[in-house]
């Protein structure tokens, strides 16, 4: 089922891995490159070739856990597996892992002990998955809630409950070593229940009453029900029920009991399958509160290590406390708001904050360090990573390479109306001319009146500015097919030995399908070296829509097997926005492509390259 499971440090060293088959390609490396480095950890799964890759992080120990399986399989238990494995691994090798923080060459045989443990975890989860699949058939009437309300059903219920309880006890007592997977599942169910039973949803008079009554009477646990003695208990069961001796077994029992709340338990089908009780169940609401408290207590115990108040006091003083999600939530929402104020598209800010908190949860704070400062620091690295280009920005080097191959280098400028395509095309042209390159401008905006004349004026100006420059305008008037003109221009450039062809296209709204089709045609017919999206820095949320739809159109309408995508971005009107530079972030995050230039003014020389650290500082400035 599973193809590959691996545990490695953020430094890149594999600590433990388990291959069930030989992997094709490098899905794990792809994951690191395309998800973890790009700050897209807010997502849940990643597809690479024939595989789906899921992962989880253990930040306090710098670990990454990755599971790889075939894309066509629907393995619902993988997330559970990752979480269970993470817990088991970090517990088993706590000391060794501390060492790993300072050493690279960790002998792999130190983690061999995990083989058996992992196998048992997988087996357990697979079994559970299997049984839940097998039981996906419609329930019998006798199992439904409706049946319980019938006369017959209410009679039979008492006996049922008793038998259910017995099987429960048996479950928790045997195999205490192996039940971490079960305990994990139950804890998850409890969590899910708590989430669904939020205060907002718990309207209604009856449930409210029930809730307050239950919590006032029994703050921790709902009252226990009577145990039915039918006189036929096996020796094992009898032993399990004997609480008089406080042995290890009893301890395990108590620990397991704390994790769950009997009253909030769902129903259990005949063959021991556990179903989470749905929120609508009568009487469930009161116990939500109790289970909530219970699990909270449990969390505290786990983090404090049971050292008592003094210990945790000193921990707080020395600041050696791991950051929890609840610590982060307020800081993160403030950070998100801050980013949105800087004109970052809302859902990108959201995504980014999620990703950053994924990377922080579990980290230990140093002395005198606040969560806020840590978040800011992490956000700074995240922003730098996103804005740092993945590919070379050296367009000139590409042009020289093309010249060596005796072909013109083609750049197509695309974008919505009025963002400054023609203006920035002419600025780019000026820069190329200064580097003694010959340029042909193809006027493929055959729609807007005056577009060709605008370019003609630019060409004339540029020729006047640079005496030695070789610049020409290739135009065929209005109303013609843009793709055809571009093609003619490229062959003209080739025949006349131009170095660069700059193709100006008509501005178009991303929703206008006929126009997007014609753009896609232009791209697929000419296969340009660079497709440059021109966007203005003033856009906020719209940036996301524009870029996704342009990319989507290039993909959908191309008819090619390997459709082209936007290769780079020119961000215009950058001088008008002060420090609200969010558009730069939104655009690079959406496309993963670099910002080649920013337009910063009205003259030909106002084309600059973007300074990443400058933008990051502007984004974080208060």
């Amino acid at each position, binding site marked *: 089922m599973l193809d590959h499971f*691996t545990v*490695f*440090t*953020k*430094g*890149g*060293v*594999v600590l433990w*891995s388990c291959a069930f088959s030989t992997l094709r390609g490098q899905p*794990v*490396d792809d994951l*690191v*490159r395309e998800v*973890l*480095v*790009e700050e897209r950890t807010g997502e849940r799964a990643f597809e690479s070739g024939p595989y789906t890759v899921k992962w989880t992080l253990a930040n306090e120990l*710098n670990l*990454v856990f990755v599971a790889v399986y075939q894309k066509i399989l629907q393995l619902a238990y993988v997330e559970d597996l990752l979480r269970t494995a993470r817990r088991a691994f970090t517990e088993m090798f706590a000391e060794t892992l501390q060492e790993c923080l*300072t*050493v*690279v*060459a*960790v*002998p*792999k045989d130190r983690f061999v002990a995990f083989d058996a443990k992992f196998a048992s975890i997988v087996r357990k989860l697979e079994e559970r998955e299997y049984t839940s699949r097998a039981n996906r058939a419609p329930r019998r009437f006798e199992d439904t809630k409706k049946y319980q309300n019938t006369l017959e059903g209410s009679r039979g219920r008492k006996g049922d409950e008793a038998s259910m309880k017995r099987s429960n006890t048996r479950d928790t007592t045997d195999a205490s070593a192996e039940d971490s997977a079960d305990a994990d599942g139950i804890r998850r169910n409890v969590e899910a229940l708590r989430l669904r039973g939020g205060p907002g949803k718990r309207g209604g008079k009856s449930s409210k009453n029930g809730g307050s009554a239950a919590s006032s009477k029994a703050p921790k646990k709902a009252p226990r029900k009577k145990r039915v003695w039918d006189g036929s208990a096996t020796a094992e069961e009898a032993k399990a029920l004997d609480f008089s001796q406080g042995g290890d077994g009893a301890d395990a029992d108590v620990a397991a009991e704390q994790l769950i709340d009997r009253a909030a338990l769902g129903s259990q089908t005949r063959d021991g399958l556990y179903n989470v009780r749905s929120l609508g169940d009568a009487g469930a609401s009161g116990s939500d509160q109790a289970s909530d408290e219970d699990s909270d207590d449990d969390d505290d115990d786990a983090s404090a290590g049971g050292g008592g108040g003094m210990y945790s006091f000193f921990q707080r003083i020395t600041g050696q406390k791991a950051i929890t999600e609840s610590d982060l939530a307020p800081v993160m929402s403030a950070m998100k708001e801050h980013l949105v104020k800087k004109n970052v598209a809302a859902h990108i800010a959201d995504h980014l904050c999620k990703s950053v908190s994924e990377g922080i949860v579990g980290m230990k704070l140093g002395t005198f360090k606040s969560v806020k400062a840590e978040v800011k620091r992490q956000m700074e690295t995240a922003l*730098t*990573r*996103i804005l*740092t*280009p*993945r*590919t*070379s*920005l*050296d367009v*000139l*080097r590409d042009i*020289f390479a093309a010249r060596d191959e005796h072909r013109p280098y083609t750049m197509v400028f695309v974008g919505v109306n009025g963002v400054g395509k023609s203006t920035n095309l002419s600025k780019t042209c000026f*820069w190329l001319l*200064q*580097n003694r390159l010959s340029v042909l401008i193809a006027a493929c905006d055959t729609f807007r009146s005056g577009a060709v004349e605008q370019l003609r004026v630019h060409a004339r100006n540029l020729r006047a500015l640079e005496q030695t420059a070789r610049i020409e305008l290739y135009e065929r008037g209005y109303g013609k097919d843009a793709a055809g003109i571009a093609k003619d221009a490229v062959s003209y450039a080739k025949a006349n030995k131009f170095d660069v062809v700059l193709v100006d296209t008509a501005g178009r709204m991303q929703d206008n399908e006929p126009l997007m089709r014609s753009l896609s045609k232009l791209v697929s017919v000419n296969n340009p070296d660079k497709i440059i999206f021109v966007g203005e820095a003033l856009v906020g949320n719209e940036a996301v829509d524009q870029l996704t739809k342009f990319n989507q159109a290039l993909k959908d309408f191309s008819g090619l097997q390997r459709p082209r995508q936007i290769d780079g971005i020119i961000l215009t009107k*950058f001088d008008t926005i002060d420090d609200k530079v969010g558009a730069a972030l939104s655009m690079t995050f959406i496309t993963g492509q670099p910002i080649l*230039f*920013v337009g*910063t003014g009205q003259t030909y020389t106002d*084309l*600059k*390259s*973007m*300074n*990443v650290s*400058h933008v990051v500082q502007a984004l974080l400035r208060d």
Partner: protein
Amino acid sequence: MSTTAPAATHSHASAGKNEVALFGLPALLLIVAIVSIAIAAVYLRRASGVKADSILLVGARGSGKTNMLARLEHDAWVETHTSLKDNSVMVALDDEGKLCTRVIDVPGHEKLRYQTHHFTPVARGIVFVLDAARLGKDIRQVAEYLYDILTDSRVAQREIPILLACHKADLATAYAPKRCREMLETEIDRIRVTRTAAVDSQTAEQEQHSAAERYLGYEGETFRFDHLPNDVQEVACSSLQETSEANDRLGSVKEWMADVAAGRT
């Protein structure tokens, strides 16, 4: 501040001694306060002063830096994935373990490379790891990275020695170190032209002497590593362990590191 603090402490301390007899306890407290301030000042100066005592392992991703580091540290073979964070370990450079140095493996992913510039202040030497078998294909990316390192202001100013470690030399398709050096020289010669012709940075007015503006080598001449103030050497190496000479495969890198750590270059 750091130069004046000790002097000020002395004068205060001597004044304090006279006052002990007069004022007793308050004066004693005053002395304690002054001494602790002095200690804090010294401590702060220590913290702010950076000691350049590390050797960096840099290079494009997939060139085998993390692997090489494990080999250098414990002569162990580790399986690796693309690094997300830097690895930093102490490496013993001679058999007795007297000569040790910190070696930092900087992630080579394009988006994480900017971290290199955070480490150059602590660098005493830089090992530029390259995949000798793939250099023909990757020459542009590799040369650009090397160019970025060479133009880093601290690398140039402090004349940090650089070793071109042509890794994976065990592969049949690997280029010889001399050839790698020549290829890099040719490519950097081209990059030098395009980079200096690139559009100005957005904030270029404020930082006139920024790193990117530095011109490598001599104008009007083809670029050679010899033109640089830095000492640039090249060696072939491999982290593979299958023969008995395995130790020798990284031996040349280790030797170079030992020279750098001992200050012999």
